[in-house]
Every structure is written in structure tokens, then in C-alpha cells.
């Protein structure tokens, strides 16, 4: 009820404000200066006019009387203003991002002014959630990436394009698989079991947490991306914005002649293997001879399984778009085809995207927008363990028969490899793919009820449907036991969202006020059905040919809903002082009935010092703004039913063919929102309009942290969702852009870096760690990703045994460190290292001369350790003689004889004292710097093009991931630095049988007719 009364109060206030009497009162009360009217010697006249820039009207520009700044107004949404001043007065026209002008009135009653933009991006309009603002007027920490900056890296996912382009935004990809999306975190991990993916907002409406559903937009349609980082910015998405917000705005047409654009990019991908190398036959034979007796006949084969499992793929990306319109109606229509072949065989992604963005000013007051987007995707997956075999199959085993057909290891008694599989044989017949269709339709209305008051209704429906097939032919190893098997899975997801907004905007002298009230509701349904069959004829991967089933069909429906109210007041005075305050109340079905609602509030303020007279004359400083904000946000990404105590009634509870119910989840009706309190201070400073520096300091505390608290099994459940404990992320980020040369030869440099420190502050119930037994226990006083495991103490020079540290506590309670060669005796200790990097960042240099441009973009991560999990399989001191092994990295050595100081124990068949068990042995420095993209472009001179009626054309060649500097022994040091929402057993920051990332060389052309 609190909320309703608040909104009613707000609505009454709006009525009141809009009444003519109220206006007079307010105007009167703002004209505080009693001399305002008394000192005029000339008669006052009323001046009307319009303020524009080169692209149209400038709303919100302030007009004041120089002799008495108490008299002033500002322009409305169409740039119009009216002001009553003495006929000999001088008007000062100011707007952020434009040069301030002084205009003598000289008795004129109509004055139209064209403002000249300052040479920076402060006047760029930025979409920040429910409203848009000029960049210079923001009070919060926001990073903006324009379409221009997204060029270069070729991907079908926008997120992978913004890696390293905004400070504090960590994009990490654990795979080069084109069908898998990267992970993204903003300002560190703020949650442990709650989702850590930022909220994605597309064209003004919430799409969902990043990664939770297929993209409903193509990178080619993106006009700009805004990343909201602090609470003042993310506040309006308060309840779900704890991990930050990404706002994507798609393109719209501009009034004028139709613009038809075509772009094409084609190139090649090759697998990047870094420092990693597997053994060939001779190397493996020599190695195995040190601990077993391999038959020399194995040397007659030397199969390079890695090369067979990987390939050079092709990337193609074509887009055609048409845009344009009239003053009243605008359109943007685009079609895109994207195809990327993965570097592992049989893996590719094919996507077709269509978009139509239409808007029309139906009447003077009513604007209608219709945004339609459809994406059709077909993903073909690597199957039959191709990559795994690439790593582990023995070079001793042959891939092909003499006649060129793939060897079937099952009928090859001499086969040596452990898994007795040859993916080349299986992938002749097996299939794995998914088709998906993703549609979204937005209908948006903006209605200007009266001057200054706008009602908007933003409505969206999305459909996301998938059909997945896994087929194992009866002729293959995978399908042999079932005589052919087929798995089909269908999912169907609908989302409905309606967001209704009332916005009041007005200026009173130099005071500019915006009040916003929003009511929003969202509902989602997710259905799935899975079925499988077996006994299929060879080569018929359809369900109708199956004559039996493997397991019972499964399926179900999930749903959730959210509803919220919010109100926001945004105020600025004279383009110098800015303040913003907001309040949000939200309910979600995901929380316990007792605690389903959450209240969130945000405050922000900023001060543009460079607009003050005392800084006006300090020439070197072209811009200076101080910002501060504080507020709360929340996290609701913990699945749909975490608070309920449940008995599962699915197939896992059935027995003997009878349906059953088994305890599955321990209930917690008091479960509620995880809340983040974020304080942010920062400044933006510009020198000579050449150097721009933005610095932010933040302190983000998560309270009532959502934990999946592990329970002893005697409780009967694996875990319970609880709100326990608190953690803190504190950090510093900066973004520095310098224009080193601005003449005909231009050189611009950008460096951004972010330093984040994560600490668990406290836990309830006297616990000192959330997962005390884990390799990242998440203990009080530690980073959530600090490692705890037996510490590797090297190799015993006397006998080549592995050694681990063993902490012995003496009678006085003092700890001494001894060593042991018995793994179960080794003490689990903090290693002093973490999967969290000390800093991350990006570095870009752009050079241009006439039509030629060259940009080189590096991203880097420093100070994290990666748990190189898969070394347990191919670097394990003889445990497996039936898997291939890695060539030791330079500087590593094996123990051979007494006295050897070695990094690797003596190889022993069957393993040397569990030397491959989890320990700091497999922790490696994960720091790297990568040349993420380098692009050389040439803008073909228009003089050449005009003859063939092309208005502009650009050609470019670009390279992705061409060079990586790292000490990491695996194929690639880049690891996913966020929890895996699907598999809690995956250690964040670990590397396991990595899919190689692609090195790409791409050639492209952009043509505009």
C-alpha cells in the first residue's frame, strides 16, 4: 500500500504542477531575487525563439539574463523558449556540450539561435534506462560504446565485441566455440549463488539477465551500448541491477533521403594453441619407456589427433539495411546473415536476422513506434567427443584405414587408446544441432498529454523457441549399445512485458526538473519437452523411426513474474548542479511469500565546475565534473523457485515404474532479495579538449547475500538457499583518451583499467566459510575466488615422489610446515592466490591519415591464477599410459635420478602417489595481454565513387587474437571469471579441455548508396 499512496501522491502533485495557478506560484517562488523586476530601466519585452544545433532542436538549453541570472528559462522538447527581459538585455545561452553564447536582445522579439557543438562527446545523448540524457549531464558512472567503436572484432554477439572497451567490464570467454556466448561481469562478482550477469535492456525494455536467453538483436543493428555501473545509474532497474545494466539501443532512420548500406565481411579462423603442445609418437614412446614397456611397433603410426580435430574455418557476415524517413515517419530495416565455422570439426553457427524499426508521429501529440526483430539460428555442435579425442587419443593409434576410411577402433584389437574411440568414424554418422527462433515485437506509444507531461507505454512480447537434436547412429560407438539413439528437445518461452511511464519535464528559470513515475509488470513462461528413442535404422535421425525409448519423456513448465513501481526526480540548476533521486518497489515470485517485495532507493549528484566562472578562465581545463552517488540495487537471479520446500515428482522420484515424490529442496519462506549498496565518486576532466580522463572509485557491498549453503548430508538435502553474509567489492577504474595528433594525421589513444578487490565481510550462524571444503571456500576476510588446496612442495630429490605441505601444530599451538608424499596427509591451505585478477583493461591506438585508418586494440588481465584442470589427464606422471601427454613447457623437468631438482615427479605407471590430485601444482599464472583486434581500413575517396553513384565506401582488413603474451601452459589463458550457472562443479577461473579460441583474418567492405 505504501507504494500506491506514494504514486497517488506523485500523481496529485503532477495535477497540481500542471494547473496554471500552480505554475504561477512556482515561478514566483523561484524568482527569489526581489530586485528582479525593480532595477530595469528599459521596458520588458517577451522574446520567443528556437534553439537548434546542426541536427535539430536543442531541448533543455538554458537562457538567462546576463545582468540578472535570476531571470531565466529553458527550451522545451522542441527547442522553443519564451522569456521576458529588458529590451537592452543580453541573453546567455548554455547547454552542456555546446559553446556558450551571448546574444544581445536589442529589442528583437524573435531570436533563433544555432548552437555550436564543443569538440567532444559531452553533447552526445545517452540512453540511460527510462530516459536519455546528454553525456555531460550524467551524475553517475556510465560507459558508452558507440557503433563506431564496435567495428573490428567479428562476432555475432555484441558482448564479445565490448571486451576491453570499457573499464570495469570484464568479458571472459572460456571457449572459441561460435555457438557459446562469453560471460560478463561488471565491477567484480557481487553475488555467489545469485546470477552475476548484468541485466540487458534493449530499446528501453528489460530483456533479462545477459545470457539467459538468445539475443533478440544483431550486432549490426546496434546504434549504441551504454553500460550502467553505479547505483545512481542502475537504480531504476534497482531490484535486478545488482550486477550492472547494459543498455542496447538499435538503429533508427533519420529524416532525409533513403540510405541503403551494404556490408560484407569474409575471413578465416584458425585455432590458437598458445604454449601448448601434445606429444608425437616418438616423444610419447620415449616418455612411456621411462615407466612402462611400450611395444616399439607403436611407432609405425604417428597420428596428430589435435590437427584432425581442429581446422581452419570461415567466417561470413553480410548485412543490408535501408533507413530514412520524413519528419514524421522514420524507418530502419535490415537483414543480416552470419556464419562462423568453429575451429573444431563439425561446429558452426548460422544466423539470419531481420529487423524493422518504424516510428511515426501520428498526431502532434502521439507517436507510435513498432520494433520487430527475428533471429533464426542453426547451431551445429562438435559431437562424438571430437575435442576430447583431439587432446587425449594416442598418436600410436591410426585414424584412417589403408582405403582412406576412418578406423573403427571397436574392431581394431590393436587399438591402444583408453576411450577406444575415433571421432572421425563416429562423426560420419552422428549429429548434434539446435535450431532456434527468437522473435520480439515492441509496440511503444508516447503521448504528450499537455505541455511538459508525457505518457509512454512500452510493451514487448518475445518468443524463444528451440529444437535440439542429438543423434547417435547404430554404426558408431556412441550408438552401438542402444542400436542407434536419438534425443529431441523442444523449448518454448514467452515473455510479456508492459512498462507504463509518466514523465513531467519543465524548467523554471535556471531550474530544470524531470519527474518520472513508472509502473511495470513482466511475466514469463518456459515450457520444455524432451523425448528420446532407440533402435533406429542407420542414417535416419528422426523420432518416427525409433522402435523403443531409452528413458521416459520429460518436460515441464516454469514461470515467474515481476512487478514494480518506481519514481524518480531529476533536477539541475543552470547546467552546473545536477541531482537525481529515485525509489523503486518491486515484487518477484522468485522469493518467499513472506518477503517477496523489495524497496530500493538511489541518490546522485554532480557538479560541472568548468561551467563556473572561476574556472572559465583556466584555459587548460576544458571540462571538469565531480560526481557522487549512493544507492541500493538487488539480485533476483537464483532460479524460479528457490524459496519453496519441495518434493520432486519427476522421473528421478519414480521407482519400479510407479510415480513417486522425493524430498528435493529445503524451503526457506523468508528468502528475500540480495541487496547491493553502492557508493561511487568520480570525476571527468578534459584538458585542451584533447585529453579526457574519467576516474571512478566505488564501494559496492552486497548484503543478505544469496547463498546455496551446503548442508551435511544428514540433513537430507544438498543445500538450502539462504540470505547470509555480506561481501564487498571496492575498486578504481579510469578511462583515459588522448588525441595525440589532430591534424591531417590523427592519432588517438585510449587506455582503460579497472582494479577490483573482493572481500567477504561476514557470514551468519558463526560460519567462517560458505563452502569450507571447496577449492574456493569463500571465507570471511577472503576474496570469493581465493584458492584453498594442498600446496605443492615440489619433488623429492631423493626418490622423485611428489611432495605437499603438511601443517603440524605443536604443543604450544604453533604451526610448522613439513612435507609429505601422502596426499591424504597434505593440509588444505590458502595458496595466497586467487582466480580474481588484480586488474583488467584495454589499450587502443587509432591512427588515421586521409582515408587510411589503423587501429590496434589490446586487452589484458593481470594477477589471477588459473587452475589448469585438464593437466590431471595429460600431465600426470604416468597415471595413464593410454592417454596422450603434453610436452613439458620450457623450464619444466622430470625427475630421473637421485639428486634431481625437478618440477615433475618420477613417472610411475598408474600414477605416482596421487600426484595429479587437486593441488597448487596445477595453478598457473593466468595473466595475459592479447592483441584482440587490429584493423586497417581505407575510405575510398568520394570523387572516385560519385561516378558510380556510391556515396561512400570503405574497405578493411582486420585480425582478431593474432598475438597473446602469457606464461600459461595451456592453449589459452582466458578463462571464465564468473560462476557457471549450469554447473556448480566448475571452478570459476579454471581451464579444462579448452576449445581453442580463433585467430581470425577478415576482409570487409562497407558501401553506402
Amino acid at each position, binding site marked *: 500500500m505504501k507504494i500506491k499512496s506514494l504514486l497517488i501522491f506523485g500523481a496529485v502533485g503532477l*495535477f497540481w504542477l500542471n494547473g496554471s495557478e500552480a505554475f504561477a506560484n512556482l515561478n514566483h517562488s523561484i524568482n527569489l531575487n526581489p530586485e528582479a523586476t525593480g532595477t530595469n530601466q528599459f521596458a520588458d519585452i517577451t522574446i520567443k525563439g528556437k534553439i537548434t544545433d546542426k541536427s535539430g532542436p536543442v531541448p533543455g538549453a538554458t537562457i538567462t539574463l546576463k545582468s540578472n541570472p535570476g531571470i531565466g528559462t529553458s527550451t522545451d522538447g522542441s527547442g522553443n523558449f519564451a522569456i521576458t527581459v529588458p529590451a537592452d538585455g543580453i541573453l546567455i545561452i548554455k547547454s552542456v556540450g555546446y559553446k556558450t553564447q551571448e546574444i544581445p536582445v536589442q529589442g528583437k522579439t524573435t531570436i533563433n539561435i544555432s548552437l555550436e557543438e564543443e569538440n567532444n562527446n559531452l553533447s552526445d545523448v545517452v540512453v540511460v534506462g527510462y530516459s536519455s540524457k546528454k553525456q555531460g549531464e550524467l551524475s553517475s558512472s556510465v560507459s558508452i560504446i558507440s557503433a563506431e567503436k564496435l567495428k573490428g572484432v567479428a562476432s555475432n554477439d555484441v558482448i564479445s565485441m565490448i571486451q576491453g572497451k570499457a573499464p570495469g567490464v570484464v568479458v571472459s570467454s572460456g571457449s572459441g566455440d561460435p555457438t557459446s556466448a562469453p560471460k560478463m561481469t561488471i565491477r567484480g562478482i557481487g553475488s555467489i549463488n545469485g546470477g552475476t550477469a548484468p541485466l540487458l535492456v534493449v530499446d528501453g525494455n528489460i530483456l533479462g539477465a545477459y545470457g539467459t536467453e538468445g539475443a533478440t538483436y544483431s550486432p549490426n543493428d546496434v546504434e549504441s551500448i551504454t553500460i550502467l555501473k553505479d547505483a545512481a545509474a542502475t537504480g531504476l532497474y534497482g531490484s535486478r541491477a545488482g550486477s550492472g545494466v547494459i543498455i542496447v539501443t538499435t538503429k533508427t532512420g533519420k529524416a532525409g533521403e533513403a540510405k541503403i548500406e551494404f556490408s560484407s565481411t569474409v575471413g578465416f579462423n584458425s585455432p590458437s594453441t598458445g604454449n601448448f603442445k601434445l606429444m608425437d609418437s616418438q616423444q610419447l614412446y620415449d616418455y612411456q619407456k621411462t615407466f612402462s614397456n611400450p611395444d616399439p611397433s607403436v611407432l609405425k603410426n604417428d597420428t596428430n589427433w589435435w590437427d584432425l580435430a581442429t581446422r581452419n574455418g570461415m567466417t561470413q557476415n553480410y548485412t543490408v539495411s535501408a533507413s530514412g524517413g520524413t519528419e514524421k515517419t522514420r524507418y530502419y530495416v535490415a537483414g543480416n546473415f552470419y556464419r562462423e565455422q568453429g575451429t573444431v570439426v563439425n561446429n558452426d553457427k548460422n544466423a539470419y536476422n531481420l529487423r524493422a524499426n518504424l516510428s511515426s508521429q501520428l498526431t502532434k501529440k502521439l507517436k507510435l513506434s513498432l520494433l520487430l526483430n527475428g533471429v533464426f539460428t542453426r547451431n551445429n555442435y562438435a559431437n562424438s567427443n571430437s575435442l576430447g579425442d583431439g587432446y587425449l587419443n594416442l598418436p600410436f593409434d591410426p585414424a584412417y584405414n589403408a582405403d582412406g576410411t576412418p578406423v573403427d577402433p571397436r574392431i581394431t584389437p590393436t587399438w591402444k587408446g583408453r576411450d577406444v574411440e575415433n571421432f572421425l568414424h563416429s562423426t560420419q554418422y552422428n549429429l548434434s544441432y539446435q535450431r532456434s527462433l527468437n522473435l520480439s515485437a515492441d509496440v511503444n506509444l508516447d503521448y504528450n498529454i499537455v505541455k511538459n507531461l508525457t505518457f509512454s507505454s512500452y510493451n514487448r512480447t518475445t518468443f524463444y523457441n528451440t529444437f535440439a537434436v542429438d543423434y547417435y547412429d547404430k554404426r558408431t560407438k556412441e550408438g*552401438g549399445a542402444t542400436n542407434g539413439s536419438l534425443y529431441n528437445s523442444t523449448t518454448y518461452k514467452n515473455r510479456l512485458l508492459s512498462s*507504463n511511464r509518466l514523465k513531467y519535464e519543465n524548467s523554471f528559470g535556471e531550474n530544470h526538473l524531470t519527474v518520472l513515475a513508472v*509502473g511495470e509488470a513482466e511475466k514469463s513462461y518456459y515450457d520444455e519437452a524432451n523425448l528420446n528413442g532407440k533402435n533406429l535404422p542407420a542414417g535416419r535421425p528422426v523420432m518416427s523411426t525409433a522402435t523403443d525409448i*531409452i528413458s521416459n519423456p520429460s518436460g515441464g513448465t*516454469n514461470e515467474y513474474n515481476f512487478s514494480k513501481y518506481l519514481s524518480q526526480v531529476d533536477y539541475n540548476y543552470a547546467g552546473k548542479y545536477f541531482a537525481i533521486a529515485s525509489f523503486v518497489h518491486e515484487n518477484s515470485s522468485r522469493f518467499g511469500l513472506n518477503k517477496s517485495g523489495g524497496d530500493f532507493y538511489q541518490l546522485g549528484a554532480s557538479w560541472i565546475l568548468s561551467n563556473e566562472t572561476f574556472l572559465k578562465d583556466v584555459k587548460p581545463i576544458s571540462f571538469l565534473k565531480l560526481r557522487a552517488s549512493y544507492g541500493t540495487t538487488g539480485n533476483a537471479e537464483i532460479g524460479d523457485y528457490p524459496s519453496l*520446500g519441495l518434493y520432486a515428482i519427476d522421473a528421478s*522420484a519414480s521407482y519400479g515404474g510407479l510415480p513417486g515424490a522425493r524430498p528435493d529442496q529445503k524451503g526457506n519462506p523468508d528468502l528475500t532479495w540480495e541487496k547491493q549498496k553502492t557508493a561511487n565518486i568520480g570525476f571527468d576532466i578534459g584538458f585542451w579538449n584533447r585529453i579526457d580522463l574519467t576516474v571512478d572509485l566505488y564501494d559496492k557491498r552486497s548484503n543478505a547475500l544469496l547463498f546455496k549453503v551446503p548442508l551435511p548430508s544428514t540433513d537430507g538435502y544438498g543445500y538450502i538457499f539462504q540470505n547470509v553474509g555480506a561481501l564487498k567489492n571496492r575498486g578504481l577504474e579510469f578511462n583515459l583518451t588522448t588525441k595525440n595528433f589532430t591534424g591531417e594525421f590523427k592519432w588517438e589513444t585510449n587506455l582503460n583499467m579497472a582494479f577490483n578487490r573482493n572481500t567477504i565481510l561476514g557470514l551468519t550462524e558463526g560460519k567462517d566459510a560458505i563452502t569450507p571444503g571447496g577449492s574456493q571456500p569463500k571465507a570471511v576476510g577472503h576474496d570469493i575466488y581465493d584458492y584453498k588446496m594442498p600446496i605443492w612442495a615440489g619433488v623429492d630429490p631423493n626418490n622423485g615422489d611428489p611432495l605437499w605441505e603438511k601443517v603440524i601444530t605443536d604443543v604450544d599451538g604453533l604451526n610448522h610446515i613439513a612435507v609429505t608424499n601422502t596426499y591424504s596427509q597434505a593440509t588444505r591451505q590458502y595458496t595466497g592466490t586467487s582466480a580474481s585478477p588484480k586488474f583488467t583493461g584495454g589499450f587502443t591506438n587509432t591512427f588515421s591519415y586521409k582515408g587510411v585508418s589503423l587501429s590496434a586494440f589490446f586487452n589484458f588481465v593481470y594477477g589471477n591464477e588459473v587452475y589448469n584442470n585438464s593437466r590431471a589427464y595429460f600431465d600426470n606422471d604416468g597415471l595413464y599410459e593410454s592417454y596422450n601427454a603434453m610436452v613439458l613447457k620450457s623450464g619444466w623437468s622430470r625427475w630421473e635420478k637421485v639428486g634431481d631438482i625437478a618440477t615433475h615427479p618420477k613417472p610411475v605407471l598408474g600414477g605416482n602417489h596421487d600426484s595429479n590430485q587437486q593441488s597448487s601444482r596445477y595453478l598457473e599464472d593466468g595473466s595475459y595481454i592479447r592483441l584482440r583486434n587490429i584493423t586497417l581500413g581505407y575510405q575510398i575517396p568520394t570523387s572516385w565513387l560519385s561516378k558510380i553513384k556510391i556515396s561512400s565506401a570503405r574497405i578493411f582488413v582486420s585480425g582478431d587474437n593474432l598475438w597473446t603474451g602469457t606464461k600459461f601452459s595451456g592453449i589459452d589463458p582466458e578463462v571464465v571469471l564468473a560462476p557457471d550457472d549450469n554447473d556448480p562443479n566448475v571452478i570459476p577461473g579454471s581451464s579444462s579441455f579448452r576449445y581453442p579460441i580463433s585467430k581470425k583474418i577478415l576482409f570487409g567492405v562497407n558501401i553506402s548508396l
Partner: protein
Amino acid sequence: MKANQIKIYIVVLALIFSVSSCKKEVKPSTAIDDESALTNPGDIETATIGTYAVLRNATYVRSAHFLTEFQGDNVAQGQPSSDDLSRCYRYTHIPTGTHGANFWKQAYYVIVAANKIIAAIPDNSSADLKQLKGENLYLKGMMEFNLVRVFGRPYPQGNGENPGVPILKEGVPAGTPARNTVKEVYAAAIADLLKAADLMTVAKADIFASKEVAYALLSRIYLNMGDNANAIKYADLVIASGRYKLLQGADYASYFTKIPEANSETIFAIRYTKTEDQDFGAIGSMYYSGTPGALSTPGAQGNTGYGEIYASQQYVAELDKNPADLRHSFIAPYKINGVLQVNTKIAPNVPMYYVTKYNLQEGIANLSSPVYLRLAEMYLNKAEANAKLGNAQLALDDVNLIRTRAGIPVLTLAGIAAENKTALDIVLEERRLEFAFEGQRAYDLFRNNRPMTRNYPGTHALNNTPNTNITQTILPTDARVIFYVPQYEIDNNKNLTQNP
């Protein structure tokens, strides 16, 4: 203010407020509320099925099998593996071993699920409800006994005073319980089973509990405690019930491919239906690999299963003493064109004999409903108890019943005396042949304070220096005849102590 303007405001406000009607609770579609799960007899019956389903979880059955059987000398691991099953086999346990952790977890999940139902049914309920309560008590007792055998020292050592596992009382929050003694856990299991037998009146199929199932398990428990009189008493109650018959001839040879309900010898089995096939994740995949298209013909390793745990050379030699022994049906030599294949991955190379007790139910390669109790055990429990009570002839009578069924010659007191063997020696040899691969062997030896000597090729030799020495002897007093309490449990329950 104009009237139409007011109308617009009203519309706008109505739209904004319309949101409030959307707040409502949503429920999952594949689960039900735990508060309503046990409110009526129908729901309690459904939940009881759910307790059995926990038992069926592969992380229970499969891990339990590896923990119990792989300690024995009937199996040989044929190649190194980093799976924790190697440590079960090689006696190189670690506290973070996955199978111990799986087994502990699922066993307690069964107990907690059972306790919820036990607490929900008063002792004076209807016969149907009492039956369900009895079934849950049976499952709880079965778990208590299985847990204490894996994590607590054999009962005869220290007369049960060693640490066992925590006992959970129904209707009481578990909290962070400490370990009870082995003796206390045995007593709790016996009490639960006696009460279960008392409450159960329906002769349910052998995939569910009934009175005789409780009796059969009581016989096994008493035998492990050394209470020979009770071991005989409860075995006799099962035999006398007439519900079970020893399979004969071809029926016996196909014992483990039958579905349990069609098997008159099985007392209790954990039922896997066709649609619950675990394929490569099944117990049987470790033991057997068939030929696609002709699954019952042994094929190459990796075809339909991993096929890396074989019948040990020692076991095959015992079995081969009587070539007519029907129990040859439960092992399958891997031959190509009639030539027995040898495993070249261990030294010395050894012929590959697959084990088939966990495969080919209903013709499906890795499908099996693991047998937990069967009638033959009742006879051999009696035989062992009688042997230890000095009733050698009675012991031989029951042994001979089993030998006759297997199609091999009977034994006489004189004959065994001539071989310098005791009746107990004979009973244990027969139990070895009969219950091979059924998780009994290590317990048969250790409860009788006998060492186990493996003297055959297998990865256990990799423990030795040099590893050409294939002998491994495990004394019953060895610390590793039981498993470490899972590190996860110790980390999350400070009252649990670790085994040395």
C-alpha cells in the same frame, strides 16, 4: 482543466496501477510443496516410492557397489584409471574420494526421506499405512547397516566399540550429529528392521520391502555381528516362508538377466526399468562390453561399456576347478574368432573375463537391477553360522544344497578333513563362488578376521615396488578396510571425526 484531460489522467493512472494485480505465487510443475506431500495415505504411498527412488540413484547403487565389491579378490582392475574406483580397488583411499562421498550422501538422503514418512504415520494407523511405515523403516535399517559396514570397523573388532556413523531419529532435526559407535548403529538397524517386520503384512514383490525382506537382512546383520543363533533364526524364517525358491539349471544360468519380479530366488533387488538404463554410467559398464548387434557376445572394450574390471585370475581358477559349475554363466571370456584375448595393459598379460551379473537385463547392454538379498544367501548364512557354532554337518548340508544347484559335486566331512579344511573354510569358499561380484567377499573375510590375499595381475600391483610383484595382502586390521568419512561431511559438520 478540460474534462478530456482528466479522462486521460485517469486512463494513465489506471494503466500504471494495473501492475499491482500481477503479484501472485507461482509453483513449479515438476515438484510439489513439502507441506502437502505427506498429508494423506495416497501421498504417503507416492512418497514411499520416492524413498525407493533415492536408493535407485546411480550415485548410491554404483558407488555402493564400487566401495564394497572392489575391495575383494574376485575382481581385477585391468588398466590404471583416475576414477576414484581405482582407489577403492587399490586400497589407496583419500578423504575426498567421490564414491565414499556419493554413498554417504545418498544413504542419508534415503534415511531422511524415510524418517519423514515414519514420523508421519502413527503406529496405530491402518494396515496399509503400517505397511508403508514398515517399508520406510526397512530402507532406513538397510542404509544404517550399509553405512556402518563402509565407514565403521568390522563389528568383531573391539566388539563394536569403534566409531560408526550418526543415527538419525525420526521427527527430530538432524543438526550436526556426531558418530555413534558401530554397536549402536547395528542396534539401531536391528531395531528398525524388527519393527519393520512387525508392521509389514503385505507380501509385496521383491523390488519392495516386506516382512521376509527385513528378516533376510536381519540374518545378514546378525551374521556380521557374530550372533550366529539369530543369523540362523532369521534365515530360517525366510526359508520357511516358502516365498522364495532357488533357481535351477538354465533358469539359474540366466539369473541376472531376468527382471526381479520374475525371479523367485531374489528377496530384494533395486529395480531399474528399461527407461532407467544408466548405460555407460551403470555398474555393468565397468564389467562388460558387448558386440553391437549381438550384445550378449563379448566385444571389444569400449563398445558398449568401459569393460575394465575383470574377473580375477584367482577367481577364474577357483571356478575352473569344476568345469561344469553353472556359475561360469556369470563370467564371459572375451574371444575373437574363438581366441581368448589377453589384456596387454597390465603385466603379466592376462586373459580377459568379463563379469555379466550387471548386464543384459531385458537384452539391454548395461541394464541391471542389482540384487541385494537372495535366498541362496540365507542357506549360506546358516552354513557360516553353523560352522562357527561347531555344527559342521549342518553347515555342509546347506553348502551342498548350493553346490548341487550349481551342478558340482557335494562335499563330505571326511573329504574336507582330507584336504585339511575346516567347515568354515568350505563355507567361505562356497560363498566366494556363489556371491562373487555381489559385494560380499571382503566382508566375509574381514568379519572372520581373515586376511585377503590377492595374487593375480591387476592394478593393485602398481602399489608395489617393483610393480612386477602382483601380490597384495590386506589384513582385517588394516586401517583401509574401511573408508574415510567424506571430507565434505566433516567440513560441514564439525562433530564428525575422521577415521585414522
